[in-house]
Each structure stands twice: as structure tokens, then as C-alpha cells.
């Protein structure tokens, strides 16, 4: 969850302007527009900067979301903010070191999603993509299968995990991450 802090967002917007990028606040996150950062079709790309108050499982999940360019905390060094705001300075994700350490531990401890729960490799892959917040249509596109097939896999994996919906499935699969 992002920090709901108007002053912090205003200050980051001021810093963004001084670095020559536009920055707009929405839903507690900052969307950064870089005029020069267009995709191959000339469409403007935007990236989202998240500042989290606590480093919990939700904060770690943000690091894997599409469109997120940085996950920082109020305690992060100012240099990381400038790195996150600098146009195309970094191709990837800027994360606070404390978040990166938690991510590394999560990866080191991770076992394939659904392992020991009887999920097939395909069901585990679908669960992983659900955990990244992708809708079923995008999951189908990624895997080169139809949405209906994804729905069938989802129904089976919900039954194996003993859950009712994707939110519960992702939470069940990710249980224990918050303590990692």
C-alpha cells in the first residue's frame, strides 16, 4: 500500500519538476510522465512510483506489478528518488535496499507456486501471473491459450487450494511472505 501523505507526494512532484519530468498524483501513487520516453508507436509511456509506509507482503508484490518503476519508503535516500525520476536513467525497477533485501529472501525461500499443493505446472504458472495482478485475458495472451482455458485452470486450482477466488488463491500461495 502506498503512503497516503499529501505533503510527501507534493514534495516529490516538486522534485520531479526540477528534474524536468511531469508527475501527477493518483490513488496515493505518483505517475511520472517523461516527454521523451515514447514507445515504438510514439505513444507516451508512463511509469508509477510507489512510496510505501511499511514493508509488508503487499509492498513486495508491488515490485512485480507492471508499470511500477520504483518502490521506495520515506526513509529511502534522496538519491534513489532522483534515480527513479531521472528519464530513462534506469531500465528496470528502483527499490529501497531494505525492500530489495526482503525480496531477495523471498526469492531464496520460494518454491514453485502451488508446489506441495498438487497444482500442475500450468496451474502454478497461472497462479503466479494472478499474483502479479494480470487479468485473465492478459494471462491467456501471455500463455498463448484462450481465456476459457485459463478459467478452467483457475477453477481447478481454486479447488485444490480450497479457496473461492483469485484473491484468496494469491493470498494462500503467498502466505508466509510477510514474515520472510
Amino acid at each position: 500500500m502506498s503512503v497516503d501523505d499529501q505533503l510527501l507526494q507534493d514534495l516529490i512532484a516538486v522534485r520531479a519538476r526540477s528534474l524536468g519530468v511531469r508527475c501527477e498524483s493518483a490513488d496515493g501513487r505518483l505517475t511520472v510522465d517523461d516527454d521523451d520516453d515514447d514507445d515504438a508507436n510514439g505513444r507516451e509511456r508512463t511509469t508509477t512510483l510507489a512510496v510505501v509506509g511499511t514493508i509488508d507482503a503487499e509492498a513486495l508484490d508491488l515490485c512485480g506489478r507492471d508499470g511500477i518503476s520504483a518502490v521506495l519508503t520515506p526513509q529511502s535516500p534522496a538519491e534513489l528518488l532522483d534515480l527513479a525520476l531521472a528519464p530513462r536513467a534506469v531500465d528496470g525497477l528502483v527499490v529501497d535496499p531494505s525492500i530489495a533485501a526482503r525480496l531477495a529472501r523471498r526469492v531464496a525461500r520460494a518454491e514453485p507456486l502451488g508446489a506441495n499443493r498438487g497444482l500442475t505446472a500450468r496451474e502454478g504458472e497461472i497462479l503466479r501471473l494472478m499474483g502479479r495482478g494480470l487479468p485473465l485475458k492478459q494471462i491467456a495472451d501471455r500463455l498463448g491459450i484462450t481465456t476459457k482455458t485459463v478459467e478452467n485452470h483457475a477453477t481447478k486450482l481454486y479447488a485444490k487450494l480450497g479457496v473461492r477466488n483469485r484473491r484468496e488463491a494469491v493470498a494462500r500461495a503467498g502466505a508466509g511472505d510477510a514474515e520472510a
Partner: protein
Amino acid sequence: MIDSPNILVVSASPLVHAAWRDALDGATVFGPNDDSAGLDDAEVLVLDVPTMSQLRAVLRGGALDLAPQCIWVHADIEPEDVVTVRAWGVTHTMHRSAGLAPLLALVREDRDHPRASLIGRIRDDAALDELSAEETLLLRRLGAGQTVAQLRAATGWSRHEAERLRVSALGKLGVHTTGEALAILTLADLSTA
């Protein structure tokens, strides 16, 4: 109006230290654990430290002779806190959710900004007179330690009605939290005592 005042900022968030310098045109920025020598030389002092205990540490329990304008940007405030910080020499308090605009207005000494701060406004504040009898009753009861459930039982208000009155009262007083509203009442009571 202060021309190019000597502005010092104490910010608990290193992430925005450079942003503070940008926003306040070259202001000097400290962390709360840095040596605070020189704080009393500032013409405007901005204390961006969320909690009362951090503020106490920065101000060494009120031992400093503070700037003519000392603005505490806090995350929450209790009515008794605002009395204490005024005694320490803090001239304005402002909740972080108010954002940067009212703070810049204060630095420019533009007290007419709609969100200009608590202590600065109370001196000649007529906002309390704008509260309805029900809004005043709600704040008085909450200030006396009554819970919302007890208040509803006593008045017959629905949960929705109580919340509507609370939000309306905060809006009229130009504050963001019930604690700030209660602090205004406390200060008003003190100044008329």
C-alpha cells in the same frame, strides 16, 4: 512579508530532503538526528517530524530559542500536545495531509490561505462561531472523552449523521483530523479563560 528569509527544515524523511530545498528555494535541510546547532538562527523553521516524541528530541524538550516562525508539520496531534508545543515556541502546526500549499502560504505569511495552520489561525479565529450547535456539541463531547457510540446513544444520532457532523465541523475549522479540531477548542478555551 519576509524577503528571502533564512529557512531551515528538519525532515524525518531523507527521501524528500532535496525536494524540500527545491520547494523552499535553497532552504537548509537537516535530518532529525543531525546536529541542530543553528536552528535558533533561522527566520523560518519547518519541522517535518511526524510524532511528538521526535519533535521533543529535535527541540530538546523545548530548550531552544526558536525562530519567529516555527511550523510543525505533524502526522497527528492531540489537544494537549498543541498547548505544549506552543509553550515550546512552535508558532504554527499543520497536518501532513494538508500538503505543501498551506505551508508555502505560511512561509509567505499568507495567513488567509484556507488551510493556514492551527495555532496561527486561532489568535483571531472566528471559525468556531461558524459551527452549528450540534457540531459544537459533538466536538465538546468527544473532547470530554466520550466515544462516538456513547455520543450516539445520548443524542440519538445515526452513525451517518454523527460522521456528517464531524466532517462538516472539520471543514469549517479548516483542519483534517478530529485531534486538530479539539486542539482548536482547547486553545480557544485557554485564551478566554
